[in-house]
């Protein structure tokens, strides 16, 4: 099978560039249709928009993208038409599928408060691909979710990158253990004076102490004498992957002092950070820029409360002007609405000074770059997954509809949403 070989090749190349990521070969089954999408405007996220363009998808992968006049549609391909076509949307940070729609005890798996630092908890072990919110996101153009533990603990677990396809878990999974998820700030405190951490300084002390243990664990694993190596420890094993940046630490830090604390921690332990939330980012643009770390900004419409009291619908535009790589996210919501939607969050950013192309990139190619998956998703280019979102007008306009969603060449949503 050519297809399978291609996946293996891809698997190897990504492994070499983003070490430590477990990649599963994606197979959406044999049902992959041979389809072509013809759009009045195609935003590829990899160059100027194409007027009257075609995207040809063969065996789940993009085979060709270009003007209709010069891009032939092979015989027998199903042709779908849309006014506007974009890459499938990528939700750079979500809790969908882990924090269920109903918000009842039995469907809330995003936070285990039994310990403040639990990197060994994996989203892959708690993701519910059939939660109605997965379907909801799919119907609004989201084809890939980076989902997992929510905020509220110093380290709450490891995340998962998964397609929103209604198939079983393994075939849709892009990355298991995508990132370690952490949180520094008032929302990650114990809430009780006699239970740690009840302060930010203690939070940092605990993280430093734990990463120091992970350093020691890693050192001992390398000793020559097998008998002297420590027993396998899932907790320290996960943390040690974050050392030297083998696995990213996505750290939710809303306030400026918490952002700086995270950067300090990264410097000490050579962590590769993804700064998450970053409500106060505009106060510390220089240190963020200097660090080279990307930002997954809080939802544009996040409530301006508590640690987010300085949140702004204009921060996305400010990050773009500062030349900082950033994406938008649906984030975590504890009540109603149970999740935000990246399409709408990017729309609000676009309405508050972020240029259209940059707003689209924040939920497509730039999100893929932050997740280390730009070789596979995020733009409409030959060789990438056939993931598309179809609209009947400007995707960001309130009254437009997402009229189709395609994942690996399979139409997974049709109708005006």
């Amino acid at each position, binding site marked *: 099978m050519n297809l399978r070989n291609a996946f293996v090749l891809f698997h190897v190349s990504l492994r070499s560039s983003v070490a430590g990521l477990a990649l599963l070969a994606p197979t959406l089954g044999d049902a992959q249709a041979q389809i072509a999408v013809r759009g009045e405007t195609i935003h590829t996220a990899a160059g100027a928009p194409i007027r009257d363009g075609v995207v040809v998808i063969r065996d789940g992968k993009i085979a060709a993208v270009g003007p209709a006049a010069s891009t032939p549609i092979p015989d027998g391909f199903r042709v779908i038409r849309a006014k506007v076509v974009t890459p499938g949307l990528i939700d750079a940070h979500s809790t969908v599928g882990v924090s269920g729609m109903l918000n009842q005890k039995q469907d809330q798996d995003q936070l285990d408060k039994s310990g403040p630092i639990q990197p060994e908890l994996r989203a892959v072990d708690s993701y519910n691909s059939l939660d109605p919110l997965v379907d909801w996101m799919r119907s609004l153009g989201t084809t890939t979710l980076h989902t997992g533990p929510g905020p509220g603990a110093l380290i709450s677990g490891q995340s998962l990158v998964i397609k929103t396809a209604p198939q079983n878990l393994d075939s849709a999974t892009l990355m298991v253990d995508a990132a370690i998820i952490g949180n520094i700030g008032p929302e990650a405190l114990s809430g009780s004076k006699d239970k740690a951490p009840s302060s930010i300084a203690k939070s940092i002390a605990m993280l430093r102490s734990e990463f120091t243990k992970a350093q020691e664990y890693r050192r001992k694993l390398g000793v020559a004498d097998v008998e002297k190596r420590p027993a396998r420890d899932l907790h320290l094993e996960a943390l040690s992957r974050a050392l030297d940046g083998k696995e990213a630490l996505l750290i939710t830090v809303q306030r400026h002092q918490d952002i700086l604390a995270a950067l300090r921690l990264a410097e000490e332990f050579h962590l590769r950070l993804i700064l998450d939330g970053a409500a106060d980012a505009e106060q510390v643009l220089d240190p963020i820029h200097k660090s080279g770390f990307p930002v997954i900004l809080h939802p544009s419409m996040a409530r301006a409360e508590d640690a987010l009291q300085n949140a702004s619908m204009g921060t996305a535009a400010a990050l773009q002007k500062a030349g900082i790589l950033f994406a938008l996210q649906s984030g975590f919501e504890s009540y109603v*609405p149970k999740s935000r939607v990246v399409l709408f969050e990017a729309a609000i950013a676009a309405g508050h000074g972020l240029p259209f192309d940059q707003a689209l990139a924040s939920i497509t190619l730039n999100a893929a770059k932050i997740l280390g998956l730009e070789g596979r998703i995020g733009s409409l280019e030959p060789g990438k997954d056939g993931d598309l979102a179809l609209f009947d007008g400007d995707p960001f306009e309130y009254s437009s509809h997402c009229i189709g969603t395609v994942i690996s060449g399979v139409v997974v949503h049709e109708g005006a949403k």
Partner: protein
Amino acid sequence: MTLTSGARFLSLSLAVLACLVAGHARAQEKAIALIGARILPIQGSPIDDGVLLVQGGKILAVGPRASVPIPADAEQRNVTGKVVIPGLIDTHSHIGLTGGAVNERSGPLNPDMRAVDAVDVRDPSLQRARAGGITTVNIMPGSGTLMGGQTVYLKLRQGRGIDDLTLRTPSGRVAGGLKMANGTNPQGDPPFPGSRAKAAALVRERFLAAQAYRDKITRAKGDPEKLPARDLGLETLVEVLAGERVVHHHTHRHDDIMTVLRLKQEFGFRLVLQHVSEGYKVAAEIAAAGVPCSVIVIDSPGGKLEARDMDWKTGGVLEKAGVLVGFHTDDPVTDSRLLLRSAALAVRAGMSRDGALRAVTLAGAKMLDLETRIGSLEVGKDADFVLLSGDPLSVYSRIEQTWIEGLKVFDLTDPKDAVIANGGFGAGNPRLSTLCCFGNHGGDQ
């Protein structure tokens, strides 16, 4: 503590600002003419290149440029290219209810409680509402009890205290309705109802008590010996029974909606259904009962069991059924700066554009018994209006100015107002989150 102090400082400076403005809060003397905008008066057809003339806090004239004479001494403002609509009316909000003032969970029935005693009008959430074009708001207690208390209708004038913002009914009392709720939010351990049937029974008993109280007063014919001891809660319910105070009833599920309609039938009160998430399932029944609906629009369903079947189509389905439809923010559930967005998402799901704009203006005014005064740009009505950069239902349009009774209360070109409108450092909110405790007692809003 730095941030908290900063927030306090901000709230102080806002307060100082409010004081300065309040000095001439009810005195718009000079006529102002807004010239050249596209005016959407809501009552009547859109007017291109229009003139809106206001003086003394009222609308003097509205119409095409050619047909509206502008007094020589009027202040002329060229607003060519802009769009002018009536001030928005948020029929359900919790702005200004700081520090847990939303719900009183010591008992399930609190008709004696008044929102007017709890709203902090200097809270930044009020300026956020002005930034969202909201000029009149129904601030309500929460839905954590069957009867949350008396709501208060406020004009979002810049004022020193709440008395500068209240409206009066023809009888002279502070305008407002009664907040009620059913479904899961008001449930709990005794004395709270443990079931829907118990909730309805508790409410019916209290209304029966109010009827008895009313009848006793009637029979006493003013004889102090025969008059019952004054009961603040029953007194409020007597206003409700007389139709002088509208019930704003939180309800989501189709069966809970029907329960509210049943109670209305039994006790004859005037009613606005609030949230109405499953209203599309019982649209015909709601229409037959002649009950207006103030609908919530949220970005995704769920978050609680009753919002599972929420659908953006509710507004359009109810509109087609002939129901008077409004929208609300339920701030902080949705953001006061984005009330127009709720109307626009309803259009996305099938509601007419005219209906959606009417919903956040004139329909809202009707739900608050204020339609003779606000809700449309008509001669003699209050000069409450919003100036936008473009189509009110577009994500790319910005609200540039908000005016109440001829005075500007929000201006996007003012850096302080821009921080409120966009967010950012200094927009800090001194209040505690009202979303802290849902798991403990079944919901606040």
